């Protein structure tokens, strides 16, 4: 995990598979490390919200974007589901 964090210091993003290849380990172990680092607050999951808490949606209507509901004009129901997961190192 120390090495994993050191790798990320070069500023390049990597997929889990690429990390496994670079660290010469398995994807399961990389996933285990990420789970641990996330739980201990060393890395954090990036959660994108396309919801408009400001009360207006891109259609100019009010109210439809509140309460965590995604705006149908911007995103599918429940947001984009297949964009994968991203983590970043907490500074």
């Amino acid at each position, binding site marked *: 995990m120390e090495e994993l964090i050191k790798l990320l210091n070069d500023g390049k993003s990597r997929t889990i598979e690429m990390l496994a290849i670079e660290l010469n380990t398995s994807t399961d172990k990389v996933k285990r490390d*990420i789970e641990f680092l996330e739980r*201990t607050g060393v890395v954090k999951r990036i959660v994108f919200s396309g919801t408009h*808490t400001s009360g207006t949606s891109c259609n100019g209507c009010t109210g439809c974007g509140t309460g965590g509901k995604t*705006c149908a*004009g911007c995103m599918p129901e429940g947001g984009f589901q*297949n*964009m*994968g997961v991203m*983590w970043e190192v907490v500074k």
Partner: protein
Amino acid sequence: MTDKNETVIALLGQPNSGKSTLFNALTGLRQHVGNWPGKTVEKKEGRFTHNGKEYLVADLPGTYSLSANSDEEMITRDYIASGKADVVCILADSSQLERSLYMLADYAGITVPCFLVLNMSDVAADQGKKVDASALEKKLGIPVVLLSAPNTKAYDGFYSALERAVKDKTSLNAEALEKRFEELDTYRNIKSMIPENVIPSYSATWLATKAVEKDAPVIAKIKAALPDGARSSFEAAVDAVDKGVVFTGERKFAWIDELLEGTVNTKKTKVSLGKFDRLITHHIWGKPVVVLTIVLGLIASFIPALPFMGIGQAIGKLPDPLNEALLNIGCPAFLAAIICDVILRCLSFIIQMLGFVFGVTLVFGLLEEIGVMARISYVFDNTMAKFGLQGKSVMPFLISFGCTMGGAAGTRVIDNWGQKVLTIALAWAVPCGAAWAVIPMLSTVFFGAWTPVIIVVILLVMILHMWLTAKVFGRSLVKVEDRQGMIMELPPYHKPKWGSLLRYVFGRTKDTFLRAMKVVVLVAFVFWLLSYTSTGTITDSILYKVGTFIEPVTKIFGLGWQTFMAFIASSLGKEGALGVLSTIFTGSGTISVGSMVSGTTAANINELLVANVSKPEALALIFAMTFNMPCIVALAATYQETHSVKWTARIALYYTGVALLLAGIAYYVGLLIW
């Protein structure tokens, strides 16, 4: 032991380790459910008899570890420390031992007797994993048993492990792990200061590890147990630790891996990237492949748009005959003009435009569904670095292809204010969903089959625009700082869920229709009023007077006064331009502007446009509109997200200027071509 002479077993395991299944299988109906004192966490206890002995089972809350991050973890720790349990049954998932043995590693150093249950042995067997429980038992010094909790007929091994643990008071052999901890200076230093018996049954090893991990309750307990003189040096030692949890965690996992070596047979699979993943992560071919995918996607999205174009054009033929018919039945000329000139012509434009909304949403929604979009965002990570942004900025940009407001809201994940403002500023350059509808539609009207080429040029200009904008604004917004790479888990490729995709596509098309109808009709009506004259001569209208007055200036950018008005209206929303075009260039009966200007009378709005606007001017208009301020609501969103009037105004003015500049360039390039 309870006062009723029952042996107490505590079940300890991570969530999904099958704890509840085991608990239910052991206790059956003899359960009691309540709450832990003072907490909202459920407390489950149950009883069973085996070989004439009474047992009380406490189902501890499922937690990842024994740190102090949550109520559940505190309850678990305190319960074990209370000494109520005679034996702790630690559960782990056999199918992923390297992960789930973490609880065991975190338990190491606690002296309460325990045994290990490797649950879900059936799943592990299905995966071809063979776990040697007796080898593990030798290494750990505690009974280890394989179990499939739902299979209640095969519990013999479990019961005998339990009885052995109770009889021999087996405690976990943590020497190998301690040796690994000893590698850490911070650990050795802290451990040397810890007095005996700070918490009963928690060894100095365990306490020192937790102190290195900055576990607040443990640190407080140790401090309370220390003599006054030793406290400050202990505090200093704890403060000196940085990211201790990574160092101890690393060693716990290394210990687990060592344990599993030789005790678990797994087929070693070499990690490799999929074919498409290899292609897009290639340092030379990656970007071209992705750009090609996007361009092909855009071209493909024109196919579903074609039927809409046909319907829209058919409606565009209606106004003239309908106007005549209405006048014949005695309808007032004013009303007939509103219905035909404003409403019907707008409808014609909007329906043609909707085709592209439908097509673009469908194709890119599909790319997202099957997992390609995630990979596209990965490829642009390095590009973000060149803009001076974190990799996660790529998401707001992708959302901006749908709606700039969504993109602006998406920048909330960016903690750094400067980066956030820069991301919004760059997101404005990304043509939004409305632009992807209006622009291809206008391009098709003017340039027919050349539309894909224009789209590609727009994409290239977009990248150049973003790069320049990053240079212009970047200096004052982003400091040169350490950029940390992200970790990405790309989703597996899978088949699209057509139902939810189509709901999204139709929902979006409907939303755009309603919004466009509002904007276009309103803009068209206002401009129609401005061009209305009682005399019927266009030269008397306000619009004509203002327009011809400013035309010498707008001509510099290649825009006639009519197209310049369309550009202004596109700041309200890209569709606004259609409202202007449909009123200025059309018109029937006495109130006509377009036909006066050109002297031609075309039946169809598309033909009218082509007859009245030269190709270079149309190209100028297309670029002016695409890179104009996205819309008035996006302007408001930008202010909401940046909380800066200065920056919002700066960005808006910059974009208006650049849009006109690009229009000028497009015009002169157009003059060279045509």
